[in-house]
């Protein structure tokens, strides 16, 4: 399917009056997928999701149906589904729009996924800052209980489910799935060492699935229209790479930074960053050029202007040295902006959000921020550049020194900024100038 023929799937109900109400959702065919799923066996639902090629939209891109099959088959006692609505990766806001505008689409996906995974209690972990989302979801869940869509004997099928909203407390690390579980349990959000993976031992030491909000929103459409329909969109598997799982379905791209029209755009997976910026975001602002673009949230690192024709599917950003597609949050940086300031901002974020458990992450994020602060004050040394590079290759789950992926997310902006813009860092340090950007001293 070409991008021109594409009609929004997940955003199809945006802007309709009362799009958040049950009556309006039902009038557009809502909850038909649920009725269909409840007439199937739970394993058949898993098979359809598996066949669709749907991969998680929360950042890691793990195949959703496959994740569900990791739950132990013969388990007695509860299985939990945790919905990850912590959405805190800089640049990312698709979960917010999905929830505010069309909460029932997400909730229908949650009920179907809970049925598929034999869950009878689902926890919706929502970042605290999304107060409006919280109130919209609360009302939507009340409507569902009143209409036999939640609680006992859903739609007369004999299936029971409760969904509980759980508000976070402003910490990025609660988005990491085991940090989320610890936080849900009432503890500090310290990610757990894996294995055991949540499917075996997760929330309350029970088998648990953690899925993103956008992943959930895809589920009703897959059940309604089938796996094959889902695979008509996006980028097929690379036949030469047996490990490639393809990039199927529609995707929400968040565009922010130096563009004329920041916003949320839904397209089949695989659009290029250049097309996204020029056709869907009104181009770079003030008639300027892009200098660097973040492909999927700050953790993924930077693409240079030359790399903007990279397709934003699961495999594309990795081919140009980025960590991956991440959350598909595209941040555009214009050619009047200093990469030293940009990298400082990124490093400061990770230093602020590191949970502090692993020494390489805690110290690496703090020292990289301090070094960049010194460079910005005009006191940098050329050797600082290699120190930053060394930090970036020593912290994270990829070198194997940390418990979770936050540290990889901290490493990639450093690695890609320095490798792709090294001359700019050298020139900056040699000049001894101070940053012009107005950042509060001492505010961490």
């Amino acid at each position, binding site marked *: 399917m070409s991008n021109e023929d594409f009609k929004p799937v997940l955003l199809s109900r945006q802007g309709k009056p009362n799009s958040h109400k049950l009556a309006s959702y039902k009038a557009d065919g809502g909850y038909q997928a649920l009725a269909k799923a409840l007439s199937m066996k739970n394993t058949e639902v898993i098979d359809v999701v598996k066949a669709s090629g749907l991969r998680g939209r929360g950042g890691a891109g793990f195949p959703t149906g496959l994740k569900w099959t990791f739950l132990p088959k013969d388990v007695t006692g509860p299985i939990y589904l945790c919905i990850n609505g912590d959405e805190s990766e800089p640049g990312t806001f698709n979960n917010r729009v999905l929830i505010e505008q069309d909460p029932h689409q997400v909730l229908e996906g949650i009920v179907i996924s809970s049925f598929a995974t034999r869950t009878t209690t689902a926890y919706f972990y929502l*970042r605290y800052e999304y107060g409006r989302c919280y109130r919209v979801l609360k009302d939507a869940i009340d409507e569902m209980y009143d209409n036999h869509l939640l609680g006992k004997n859903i739609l007369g099928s004999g299936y029971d489910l409760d969904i509980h909203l759980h508000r976070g407390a402003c910490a990025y690390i609660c988005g990491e799935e085991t940090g989320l579980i610890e*936080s849900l*349990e009432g503890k500090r959000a310290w990610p757990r060492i894996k294995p055991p993976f949540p499917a075996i031992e997760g929330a*309350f030491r029970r088998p648990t699935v953690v899925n993103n909000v956008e992943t959930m929103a895809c589920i009703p459409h897959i059940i309604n229209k089938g796996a094959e329909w889902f695979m008509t969109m996006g980028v097929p598997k690379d036949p030469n790479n047996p490990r490639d799982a393809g990039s199927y379905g529609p995707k929400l791209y968040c565009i922010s*930074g130096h563009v004329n029209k920041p916003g949320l755009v839904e397209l089949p997976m695989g659009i290029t960053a250049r097309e996204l910026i020029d056709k869907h975001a009104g181009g770079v602002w003030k008639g300027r050029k892009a200098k660097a673009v973040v492909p999927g949230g700050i953790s993924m690192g930077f693409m240079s202007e030359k790399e903007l024709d990279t397709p934003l599917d699961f495999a594309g950003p990795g081919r140009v040295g980025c960590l991956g597609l991440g959350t598909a949050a595209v941040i555009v940086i214009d050619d009047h902006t200093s990469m030293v300031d940009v990298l400082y901002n990124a490093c400061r974020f990770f230093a602020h959000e590191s949970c502090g458990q692993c020494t390489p992450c805690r110290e690496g994020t703090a020292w990289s921020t301090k070094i960049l602060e010194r460079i910005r004050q005009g006191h940098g040394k050329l050797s600082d550049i290699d120190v930053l590079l060394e930090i970036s290759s020593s912290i994270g789950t990829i070198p194997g020194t940390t418990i979770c992926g936050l540290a990889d997310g901290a490493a990639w902006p450093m690695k890609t900024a320095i490798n792709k813009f090294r001359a700019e860092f050298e020139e900056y340090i040699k000049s001894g100038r101070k940053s012009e950007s*107005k*950042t509060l001293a*001492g505010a961490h």
Partner: protein
Amino acid sequence: MSELSDNAKKVIEDHLGRYPSKQAVTLPALHVVQQETGCVSRKAIKEIADMLELSPAQINDTLSFYGFFRTEEDPLGKKRVWICRSLPCMLRGGEELLAELCERWGILPGQTTADGKVTLELAECLGACDGAPCMLVDDELSLCVTADDVEKMVRG
């Protein structure tokens, strides 16, 4: 006298049935108390701990991890304003906005104005980068704000 209001106690009790462990009610309990009193006092910590059958140290351990919660030495003003400084907002003036408000109000992030009306906070990405620079007042987002907008909304 009990430090927790009747409402807070009821909210905590209502939450107990939702989770297989009492400890899971820690965050909901801290939220309701801070919402009502602008902080979580030592006495409140003790009473929450009693209700959840935990030690006060366990509650404090969780509370202190999240920079979100305030102790009685450092209570919140009437409104809490968060200004976002992460990359998309920074690219569109978030840092300048925060600095400007600090200057106008004569306080640093984390502090409260002398009249007790506003606590100013710096935030990392608030999930509204389509409206950079953005702010959060208590738990409502406002997009594309200027220092004058902020002033009007919270002090006007």
